[in-house]
């Protein structure tokens, strides 16, 4: 299958390893991955912060950029939520019938990463190997807007050697919330402290999610808490795609997710 990748601007810039994992995994499963180079951003940051006018051209050019794609994978649940929840509304509010048609034609081709693997490719076991204790944080947008349900859990449970441990208060927001994290930094951090408490309680080695934005928040909080201490006992946030890309031959290691030199 030919699968077009929309990486999301922040994954592109801050989390290239997630994109690499998606590409390697899909190729391992026998698919061709296409990355349209002119893609940038889905418009979520602008739209959710109230810059609706500025978001509009970003939405239009994204749809344009993927006009020829049959199947689009997005390793960021909140970007997919932006597309499904707001694109049509934006077209409606702008009274733009052409855009409305475009959006209707675009959306059915878009799959969040875990949706692609389970629904489109029909897999729960992708042949991954990851002999670690892992918990899962259902990001709010994957949980309440996309309703991905237990798809990511089923995928984790399909990984050889993986010990999945559920998290108490899993449905509680990590406090990221896009620009909320800086506009209301203090409250955002108070929410994060609660989330970290829940993560720590699981005594997992890794916490997985479908959004690197939430993981960046959890990662930033965990790192600040453990300042000055060694890497021992540290919990590593990691995108689900990176776990599914881990194999016996090329395993994902905690060291590769360390802060120092954690680059491609």
């Amino acid at each position, binding site marked *: 299958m030919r699968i077009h990748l929309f*990486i999301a601007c922040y994954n592109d810039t801050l989390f290239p390893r997630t994109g690499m994992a998606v590409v390697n995994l899909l190729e391992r499963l026998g698919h061709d991955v296409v990355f349209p180079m002119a893609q940038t951003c889905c418009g979520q940051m*602008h739209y959710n912060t*109230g810059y609706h*006018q500025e978001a509009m051209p970003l939405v239009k050019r994204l749809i344009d950029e993927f006009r020829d794609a049959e199947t689009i994978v997005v390793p960021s649940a909140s970007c997919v939520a932006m597309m499904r929840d707001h694109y049509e509304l934006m077209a409606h509010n702008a009274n733009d019938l052409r855009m409305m048609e475009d959006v209707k034609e675009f959306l059915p081709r878009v799959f969040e990463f875990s949706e692609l693997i389970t629904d489109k490719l029909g897999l729960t076991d992708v042949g991954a190997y990851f002999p670690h204790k892992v918990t899962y944080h259902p990001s709010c947008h994957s949980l309440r807007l996309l309703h991905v349900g237990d798809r990511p859990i089923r995928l984790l449970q399909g990984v050889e050697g993986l010990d999945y441990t559920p998290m108490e208060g899993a449905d509680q927001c990590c406090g990221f919330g896009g620009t909320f994290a800086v506009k209301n930094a203090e409250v955002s951090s108070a929410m994060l402290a*609660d989330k970290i408490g829940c993560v720590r309680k699981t005594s997992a080695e890794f916490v997985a999610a479908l959004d690197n934005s939430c993981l960046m928040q959890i*990662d930033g909080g965990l790192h600040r808490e453990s300042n000055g201490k060694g890497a021992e006992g540290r919990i590593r946030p990691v995108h689900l795609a990176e776990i599914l890309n881990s194999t016996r031959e090329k395993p994902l290691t905690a060291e590769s997710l360390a802060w120092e030199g954690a680059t491609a």
Partner: protein
Amino acid sequence: MSVRVGHTAEKASFPILAHDILQDDQTRRNVRHATDVIRNKRALRVEEMPDWQDLRTAGHAIKTHTLLHLPHYLEMFERNCVAAGGQVHWARDADEANAIAIRLINAAAKQQANAHPEVIKVKSETAGTHVPLRPEVIKVKTMTSDEIGMNAALEKNNITPWETDLADMIVQMGHDEPSHIVVPALHKNRHQVRELFLENMKLTELGTEAEDLTQAARHYLRKKFLEVGIGVSGANFAIAETGGVVVVESEGNGRMCVTMPKTLITLVGIEKVIPKFDDLEVFLQLLPRSATGERMNPYNSIWTGTTANDGPAEFHVILLDNGRTRMMANVRERETLNCIRCGACLNACPVYRETGGHAYGSIYSGPIGAILSPQLNGMKHSRSLPYASSLCGACYEVCPVKINIPETLIHLRGKIVAADQNSITGKFSQESMGMKMAAHLFEHPRQYEAAQRMARTGQGIFEKDGKLVNLPGMAGGWTQFRDLRALPEQTFREWWKKNRANGQKGGDA
């Protein structure tokens, strides 16, 4: 017009108010405990309902229909209320509503004094001097009266209001403000309440158990119910078809307040009208389970006009607009008026659960307050509230009348940004400039790629041991409380170009 929502005009912004509360461990513990308890009870009582989603859809549909035909139903309510012996008054804003209430209270007090001159005489003799007529009212279940600042207006006009809902009484005794729509004194724990009772009820001793406190309150309030001849209440619903008014509650103090006084004045926001008595079937299932996690409220009072020798001889309804009509034109804004004030969104909200209600600077707090307060006052105040949310969606999930609060928050953010773009300070603010710059880069991939490279080179001055520290401007909010990884050595697209891009089309500009 003087549309007013409590004290929103004088309050600091959400981040500033939240900062103080985040240091107050006692308040935070109280808020967390109370919201946990109610939230869990609600979950239990909602889960057992096989048709909960259908009920929510019905609640949304009834409210939507009513709001689309509001003048029709309000006039129907007026006709039927008057026919049953009630009197209906229309108030455009806070000042008008207060003026009507004061006029009605003074007239009723004068009439009651003339009917029972001995009461005034006894009072004068006890005080030893001439006591001018100072009317008193007992109040219950009227958050709307807090919206219009009724108590302050009454006191200014020599009328003494006594709050009789337990939580409202606690708030009044502490010269405090409500911090929750359903549980106004949620931020106080039992021991703090005990201190207030000891002082205000002039008690020498009082036990520490909940039963001791309720007994003290009962004794104290019973006297008020028997002595004070004028009542002011709110309403959960006003039924157009019958002219009836509904108050639901847990304590029975509301029942006292709406049956004991000779004169009853009920303040109703115009959005509280519902078409038919039968519509209560839906709302009396949705409201108690959402608000307190009960299958049914212990007290459901419904009264229609007046009845000879039973209950108040005089019954007035004040229908209040105070900014509501202005919200009717836009479908997204109108939906906010669906609210039946159950408070479920507050208990579910991870932001509210950290800060409690006072951080919102408005009597309407939590997610619903964040959209209702700024809209009522025409986006003049409470402008930081639409940003006091991580858009996690928990509020929408629990809302019994399906108000899409996250979507409304985003809509209001859009209005705020659009308005700011018309001012010099707003247009050239750090945020606005940054957003415009980012949008420009996202529209020009080559420049975007160049910016990615520049950020990587430029981060050196902020980099320390693989992390970025003390970032300037808005990003500083991040690094103040959390660490941030330094940008990786290559972006995804750079990796792709090196490893996969052979034969693929390149980026345009």
